[in-house]
């Protein structure tokens, strides 16, 4: 909560995540080219862009699965690109949900959800299970606590993965194309859950292809194009009335009414 003490009068705009001039190269290919933007507390930011625009790479850099080649990423008051920081501690402060294969197939739902609490934060099992059951209850899945992931639908699996990511009250929730591998019928239940998290005040950075959802749920849209930030503004400004013709083409050639 260092951020709070630094900016006591300005809680609403406290920066949870600050991406500052980040550069990432794979060989000669510059995937992220001086990217900078912030995610404020209680804010939902949707990261959009065509395939290959650098969204996934950026998500991986924030989650420390990739190392940046230049620039800094701040989580609260921690520079997480500093090689001296304890990466495991940083990861434990961020909740992450990937596209698929999130849940550990050899563990029941409850063990999946409580794993980090028990093994990383050394909670006793009953304390961890109480909290996990409370969270599962809220998404109507407490009765599935002892089931294994392969007995759940894809939508249920992703909702459990989100619960697992929320278990340790992360400062930031990273959602990396969490509906891309789902049957269209199951996308809705997952997006409803994200919507609810947002109203509860979660801070979310999500990479997504769900344009309609991004438009309705995000407070801000960051559009990446060829590794650079093309747009950064409200859904209304970026998606509905973009001044840039390329941005206009991106949204309006893809959107299906």
């Amino acid at each position, binding site marked *: 909560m260092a951020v709070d003490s630094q900016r006591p009068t300005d809680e609403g705009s406290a920066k949870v995540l600050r991406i500052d001039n980040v550069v990432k190269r794979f060989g000669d290919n510059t995937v992220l080219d001086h990217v900078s933007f912030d995610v404020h507390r209680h804010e939902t930011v949707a990261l959009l862009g065509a395939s290959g625009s650098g969204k996934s790479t950026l998500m991986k850099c924030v989650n420390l*699965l990739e190392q940046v080649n230049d620039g800094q990423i701040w989580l609260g008051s921690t520079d997480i690109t500093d090689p001296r920081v304890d990466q495991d*501690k940083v*990861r434990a402060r961020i909740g992450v949900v*990937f596209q698929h294969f999130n849940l550990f197939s050899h563990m029941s739902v409850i063990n999946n959800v409580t794993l980090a609490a028990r093994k*990383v934060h050394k909670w006793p099992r009953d304390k961890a299970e109480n909290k996990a059951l409370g969270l599962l209850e809220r998404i109507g899945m407490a009765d599935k606590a002892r089931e294994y992931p392969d007995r759940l639908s894809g939508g249920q699996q992703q909702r459990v993965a989100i619960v697992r990511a929320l278990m340790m009250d992360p400062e930031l929730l990273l959602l990396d194309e969490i509906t891309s591998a789902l049957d269209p019928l199951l996308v809705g239940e997952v997006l409803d859950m994200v919507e609810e998290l947002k109203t509860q005040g979660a801070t979310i950075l999500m990479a997504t292809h769900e344009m309609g959802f991004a438009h309705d749920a995000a407070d801000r849209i960051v559009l990446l194009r060829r590794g650079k930030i093309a747009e950064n503004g409200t859904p209304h400004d970026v998606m509905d009335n973009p001044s840039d013709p390329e941005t206009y083409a991106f949204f309006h050639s893809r959107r299906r009414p």
Partner: protein
Amino acid sequence: MDVSEVEREREAYRKRERVKSVVTSVVSSLAFVALVVVTLRSSPGWPQVKESFFSPEYFAMAWPKVLDGLWLNVRVLGVAALGTAVLGTALALVRITTSAVMFPLRVVASLYTTIMRGIPMLVVLYLIGFGVPGLGLFGRMDKAVLGTVAVILSYSAYVAEVLRAGFMDVHPSQRASARSLGLTTFQTMRLVIVPQALRKIAPALMNDFISMQKDVGLISTLGAIDAVRAAQIVVAKTYNFTPYVVASVVFILMSVPFIILNDWYAARLRAREQTGGMV
């Protein structure tokens, strides 16, 4: 129960087909056995072969001695299985690491598995069984111990490759998920990667174990008195080969439970994989 005419007719047809297939397989099995029996009995040398390989008297005589020898095989097998598990895992882990510090070890492990899988097991046994005592470093060594070491060295190479394939087969997202929960590299390995890999490769590992069960009989070549060697001694005294059949029977009896277990597990795994994985 309310079943339609169509379904009743289909069920009756299926039942007829099932009976037909059972009858067919029984008849064909009987015909096969009869063919084998007739061929053996009509061959001119059968009476002599029968006397020297399937003599009840020699069978009874060799049985306790071979069984005594088998106890050594069982002990060697136990130690060799444990030793292979440890060395094989170590080799596999070294081979999948990517850190620069481990580079020389990685080369050694890779060379080791390549070479060891190429050498006939018997040669490994000779090298260890006669070569190591020849060095004169450790004084007199038990033949069974040397044989066990040779089995471990040889099998570790195979098991390491199976394990490595299993570790690499776990989807990268699983590792990423574990890491993003804040688990350390070691915890990720122990709690997520290894358990999932083991489930997938259990049939292959059990197969190696079953194969090891009979290969521990090769320590007889070093002179250790195991089941095979005990049979050999009786054969040398009596000029009758029935003791070898006795040795085969005890090895078969030892492996049957594991073969059944392996088939059962593999079938269960297959069923699980086919029903699961709906997204």
